[in-house]
Structures are given as C-alpha cells and as structure tokens.
C-alpha cells in the first residue's frame, strides 16, 4: 500500500506527514505500519510519534537543522514498508449501561430519530468500532464506525460537567469520556471501566488499530463491575485479532 504522502515542517523540531484527507481503516493501517517501522529503526533523534486520523507527527529531540535530509530518510523508510498482514490488535468488549439514569439524552435522540431507545442501543452495540488514535483528553479514544442512523449534532450549548465514563455521540463520532469534563456530546450511557490510569506505565488499555464493541449491561451488573474496577480486580473481556 503506497499512498501519496506530504511532508511538512511543524515548528523547529517536528515533521508532519499527511495522508489523503479521508477517514479510512486502510490509511490507519498504513500510518500504524509507518510508525512501527520508524520505531523499529530506532532513530535516536526521534523522541515521539503521534498518530491522528490521517497524519503522523514525528517529534525530534532538538531543532531539525536539515529538513530535507530528515524527510528523505523518512521517505526511504516508507518505501521499504512491507505489506504486513501479521499485525496483532485486540478486540475489547466494553460494558456500558444504557439505563436512562446515565443516558440522559437517549429520550431526545429517540424523538429526533424516531427510533425506540432499544433500537438506538441495538444500533450502538452491534457495530465493531476501530480505535484511530487517543487524543482530546488523556485516554479519550477516537472511534470510527458509528452507524449513520445515530449521527447526531453536538449540543448547541455544551454541558459544564459530563460524568467520567459517559458514553456519548457527537456528530458522526461516538466515544467515552475518560474523566469528568465539560462537553457538548449527547450522552447515551456510562461505562464503569477505567480508560486512563496515570499510575500505569501504559496508562491506556487500548491503542490505535484496536477494535471496540460496546456490551449492554444492567444497572446491577454495572454496579458489580464498578466495584471490581475500584478494587483493581476487573478483567475486561478481550480477544486477540490477527491480520
């Protein structure tokens, strides 16, 4: 897979590599492979690699004196990429309680979309989502794959406080708030699991390229899982995916 990439300087010590401006799983795969290969080549001066939907930001430890040299080295690495189907990712099964106690906007979406609450929940839990990258807040997963039936504009006036764990829809995206935060998305449920733990070396369980499904749980199951999470004993269901 060879896309037509553009390379731009971004300040004095970063280079931004851009793929075509579309959100697409093939592009994500290509970005991850490029990122992994750069990491494997362990270029000493590169301190950080940051993925987004259609870009990879390469951050150097000091000022890039010769932009063209760095770019031609990166181009060589990109050219050497082998089509690799041995990639390993994880499918995470994330418990979500869609009870109206949490899903404070379910009613409004139901009216707007002329869909029953049950149909909305079914639609939200049937899809396997792709994790594109983590951004916005520590542990916030940018997910692709929300059914068009559930696309819903952000609220005109954001709420000042959205609960940790809130599962929400904003435009064509769905996601989980990893911490309490202001926000304008429509809230449909809450997940008891922790998406960000600063005490761990790897503070997020999911990574770019992983898959996510939301699994409906009752209010009682939610409380049981929450208790296990708080005690540090919860084991999330997951499957390893190849290729």
């Amino acid at each position, binding site marked *: 897979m060879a896309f037509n990439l553009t390379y*731009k*300087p*971004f*300040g*004095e*010590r*970063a280079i*931004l590599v*851009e793929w075509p*401006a*579309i*959100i697409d799983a093939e592009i994500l795969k290509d970005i991850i492979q490029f990122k992994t290969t750069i990491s494997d080549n362990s270029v000493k001066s590169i*301190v*950080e*690699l*940051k*993925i*987004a*939907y*259609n*870009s990879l*930001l390469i*951050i150097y430890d000091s000022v890039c004196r010769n*932009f063209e040299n760095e770019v031609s080295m990166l181009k060589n690495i990109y050219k050497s990429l082998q089509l690799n189907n041995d990639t390993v990712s994880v499918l995470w099964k994330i418990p979500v309680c869609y009870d109206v106690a949490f899903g404070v906007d379910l009613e409004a979406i139901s009216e707007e979309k002329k869909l029953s609450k049950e149909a909305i929940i079914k639609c939200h839990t049937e899809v396997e989502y792709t994790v594109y*990258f*983590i*951004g*916005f*807040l*520590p*542990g*916030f997963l*940018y997910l692709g794959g929300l059914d068009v039936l559930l696309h819903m504009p952000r609220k005109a006036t954001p709420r000042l406080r959205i609960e940790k764990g809130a599962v929400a829809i904003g435009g064509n995206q769905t996601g989980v708030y*990893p*911490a309490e935060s202001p926000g304008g998305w429509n809230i449909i449920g809450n997940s008891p699991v922790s998406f*960000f733990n*600063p*005490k761990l070396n*790897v*503070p*997020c369980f999911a*990574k*770019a390229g992983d898959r996510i499904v939301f699994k409906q749980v009752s209010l009682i199951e939610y409380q049981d899982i929450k208790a296990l999470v708080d005690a540090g004993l919860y084991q999330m269901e997951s499957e390893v995916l190849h290729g």
Partner: protein
Amino acid sequence: MVKVLKSGMYSSVQDLGRMGFQQYGVPYSGVMDVYSASLANHILGNNTNDAVIEMTITGISLRFDCDTRICISGATMAPELNNQAIQMNKSIQVSAGDVLSFGKLAKGFRCYLAVFGGFKTEEVMGSRSMYNGVTSQSKISKNDVFLINEMNSFTVSNNALVKVKDEHFLSHRIDVYKGPEFDFLSKNQQEFLFQNSFTVSKDNNRMAYQLSEPLENNLEPIITSAVLPGTVQLTPSGKLIVLMRDCQTTGGYPRVLQLKESAINRMAQKFTGSFIDFKLVGSR
C-alpha cells in the same frame, strides 16, 4: 521540607514536562517559560529538569524548615526573605525557619522559584508537572508540604548575579513559522496576521491564550490532527488561539502558525491586554 503559607493566585510545581505520553492523549505540561525556569535551575547548579514552583500574577509564601539555597527568576514580583527584599537571578542562602514571600507584580506574568536539588513532589509518568487528572493535585494549595533536599554545609554554588534582558518581558515580537494550514489562508489573511498587532484576551491560561482581534475566516475545520504547544489555531468564527504547555494533544481547527520555542517562553510572560506582533522567521 517547605510549607506553603499562601498559595498565590495560581501556583504549581512544574519541570520540563511529560514527554512520550502524547500517544495516550496526555499533555506535555511543564514550565510555561522554559527560559526563566532553566535560568533559576542553572544558577543553583541544578539539572534543567529539576522541579520548580511556577507562580502566576501573585506569589506564594513559603516557610523553610531546613537550610538551603534558592533562586528566583522570571516575572518581577518583589521577593522578600523574612520581609527583607532579596535579589532575583541570584543564588540566595536560606536558613531553617525563614519565610519567603512576594509583593507586587511589576514586570512579566510568571515567576519561578527554584530550590537546591529541586522540589521532590510526586512523579507521574516521568514528570512532577502538576496536571489535573494525571497528578493527584492540579495546583498548589495553602498548607501543602513539599520535600526538598537538605543542603550540606558548603555545597558549591554560583554567587554571580545574572543579568536578564528586559526584551524577554517587554518585546512584543513573537517569532513564528508557517503552520501546516498556513497556505490555505488567502493572501489578505496572511498579510493581516503580520501587519497587525494582536491583543491577549482575558481568556489566557496554561492551556491556551485567546487573542482579541478576529481574523475573518472561511476555512473549514480540518480532520482532527496533531497540535503542539505554540500552535496557533483559527476557529470557524475567526478567533486566533495560541496553544500553550497544557494544551490538548490533537485538535480540529486549522493550524495557521507555529511559535518558535523561544517565542512560547516570551508569550508565557504576556497577560490580558498585552500586545504581540507575529514575525515570520525562516524560509519554511
């Protein structure tokens, strides 16, 4: 140990920030003005990454319970030790029981207090920089107690008084590179950026500085992509936002300019009502 008697308007412990965790959505954080903080550490013979206290607008008050040396750099806030004025940018001997306090802000916006060996606060993901949701406290409060190294009787120290250029605090010039979406701007928009002064609005904090003057804008939002401290974003309503050290890792507004590292430090000393002039540097 030191004990906080007064917290000041907004004080926090900061080092050079949290590197390598952007992929998890964790901001860099770290001192807003790396230049001033590094100077304070340097004068004490510390490592550049040793944690300092960053004070904004008004200073902190601290009581030391051991002998040490301190250095104060950055904004001028009339520092006093036991109610006696002390010099800035100089290594100062402190004895157990001494009380450090600050007076009125005279120049700049952010002042740094370094202590011999650095403040030994909680380290999370390789950094002591306070950030809500990452460290257990997001700013300094009254009665906080921080560990510091006890000073041996005669540790080598530098007694020189370093002269800091006023330019760092008074110049309006902010050096920038073109941002990734700069070329999407019309000729008129590009000229507007460099031919006008901009004013720092009251919405300015460790995350971002919003500028008062709008830039007429017809650019669509971009697909969410990486941002950095120093990125200047242009919102659909034409607001210019200069991202600072606590900024999010990604954003969806066009990135029209990117501040030079030294310009971020200079920006950190600006406050509500300060003027800035963007100056394009470098050919890229």
